[in-house]
């Protein structure tokens, strides 16, 4: 009940200051525009189908062997699936500013002390803060994903959509994306409750993007393909890390220090 009350409050504040969601919408739009431009529009303009590129065809075969689907479809499916990783970054980068502001912002607005004087526990406060930042951005990100999937069904070559409908895709969308966002937001919240400036929290939080970018590049270079079982393990691992971070946030959230030393 108390968590719901606080999450509702966070939503109200975001609704009254909806411009904070503009970056999320913008990143989502760019995440949509880039793959469709690279995979469908550019080849249409140049008249060179991607399937004719030997290198790309090799990468496509990693996902779907030539014996199963045509090279053009395999390449498109491979690239569309790789670009899915962009949607991992959307909620992370965009919710970062909300989470970074979560504790520091309340303290600076002097709204934290009356809240801490209520029966609310530290866990409830921190979970509410993470959900308040996560849910709106994940909602926008999922709306973008829906557009992505519909766009593939409508504009990609017939068969691409079917080739993409794999457990790997499902895991990226349903498990890895929200789990990675949870981990990064919780990490930012830990920092947010230890520093007295939202910018510091945000900059530290952005560090989590580095390993994800490395995975993104490695995927494209064909260095390795993260398979469905690996993704499942990674997702579970991320959730474990999130739980550990929740514990760490609770331990490191010092009501007294926040109230008495922050100015």
């Amino acid at each position, binding site marked *: 009940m108390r968590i719901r009350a606080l999450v509702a409050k966070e939503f109200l504040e975001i609704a009254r200051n909806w411009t904070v969601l503009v970056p999320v919408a913008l990143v989502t739009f760019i995440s949509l525009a880039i793959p469709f431009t690279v995979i469908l529009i550019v080849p249409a303009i140049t008249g060179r189908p991607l399937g004719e590129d030997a290198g790309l065809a090799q990468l496509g075969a990693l996902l779907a062997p030539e014996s199963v689907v045509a090279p053009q479809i395999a390449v498109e499916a491979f690239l569309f699936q790789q670009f899915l990783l962009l949607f991992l970054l959307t909620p992370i980068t965009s919710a970062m500013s909300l989470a970074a502001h979560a504790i520091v912002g309340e303290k600076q607005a002097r709204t934290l002390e009356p809240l801490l004087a209520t029966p*609310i526990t530290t866990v409830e406060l921190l979970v509410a803060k993470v959900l308040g930042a996560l849910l709106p951005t994940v909602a926008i990100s999922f709306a973008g994903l829906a557009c992505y999937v519909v766009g593939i069904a409508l504009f990609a070559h017939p068969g691409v959509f079917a080739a993409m409908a794999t457990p790997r895709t499902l895991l990226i969308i349903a498990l890895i994306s929200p789990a990675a966002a949870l981990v990064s937001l919780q990490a930012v919240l830990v920092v947010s409750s230890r520093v007295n400036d939202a910018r510091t929290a945000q900059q530290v939080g952005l560090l989590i993007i580095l390993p994800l970018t490395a995975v993104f590049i490695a995927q494209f270079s064909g260095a390795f393909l993260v398979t469905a079982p690996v993704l499942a393990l990674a997702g579970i691992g991320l959730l474990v890390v999130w739980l550990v971070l929740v514990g760490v946030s609770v331990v490191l959230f010092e009501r007294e220090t926040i109230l008495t030393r922050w100015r």
Partner: protein
Amino acid sequence: MIAASALTRVFGRRIAVDSVTFEVRTGEILALLGPNGAGKTTTMRMLAGLIAPTTGSVTLDGVTLTRTTGSTLRARIGFLTESPGLWDRLTVRENLHVYARVYGLADGEARIARSLERLALSDHADARAAELSKGMRQKVAIARALLHEPRMLVLDEPTSGLDPAIARQVREILEERRAAGCAILVSTHNLDEAERLADRVAVVQQRLLAIDSPAALRRRLATGRLLVRLNGDPSSYLPALKGWRAHAEGGQLVVEVQRIDDEAPRVVAALVGAGASIVEVRPEMPALEDVYLHLVAPS
């Protein structure tokens, strides 16, 4: 009942509160007085369960405040912070609504409506907090502290920044809560308000310097004066007042006394014994302000 027992709080090398012991009884208003930096806010934060004492303990309604009991006990207290701390983008009603849900009030809407009505805030219920004046914000913060009808109130300068009419309204509300059996601790710099509102006054400056009713404090801690109007030249009766500091002023005798109740009859007896024809004897008590300044003055 709110009880502080040998409450001490140290920040680094600085002792903010040093072994303070007092209690706020049921149906009582206790005013906490002290200069800036005297440890009033720290004391109140400890009583409200926001920060832990370095040593000593807090007992609320007979239950010792600990990490385990903190959440439950905080539900029984209404705490008004130094700053109103409203969410600016939310309306007055929405601000209160969040707290009604946090306190788990089943009849939250009805209580919000009553609070708004009682504090004459109904017309501003749908205004955003950012649009309110300082006084209005303070009233909303008070409404928030009272929303769950707690039996214990800890209020940090509740009338600070309020105009006299609103300040009176707040005092009336506190009197109502006292009549309803609340234990109320109020910190204030307004000595006149402390005198009119509080049953007892505690003066703190890191330590507890004094605690008593305003009248008792005045009697006990400062010199009073007796103003004696009599027929004839007052200065001619000064020799009769050996043992007292006295002088003639404006056609009357001014006699300084330590304990008016004990000494007034003796002064009158001495003057009558000297043949004075007394017209009027008027005690002049020191103001609470004098008592306060006497207590907190550097030794």
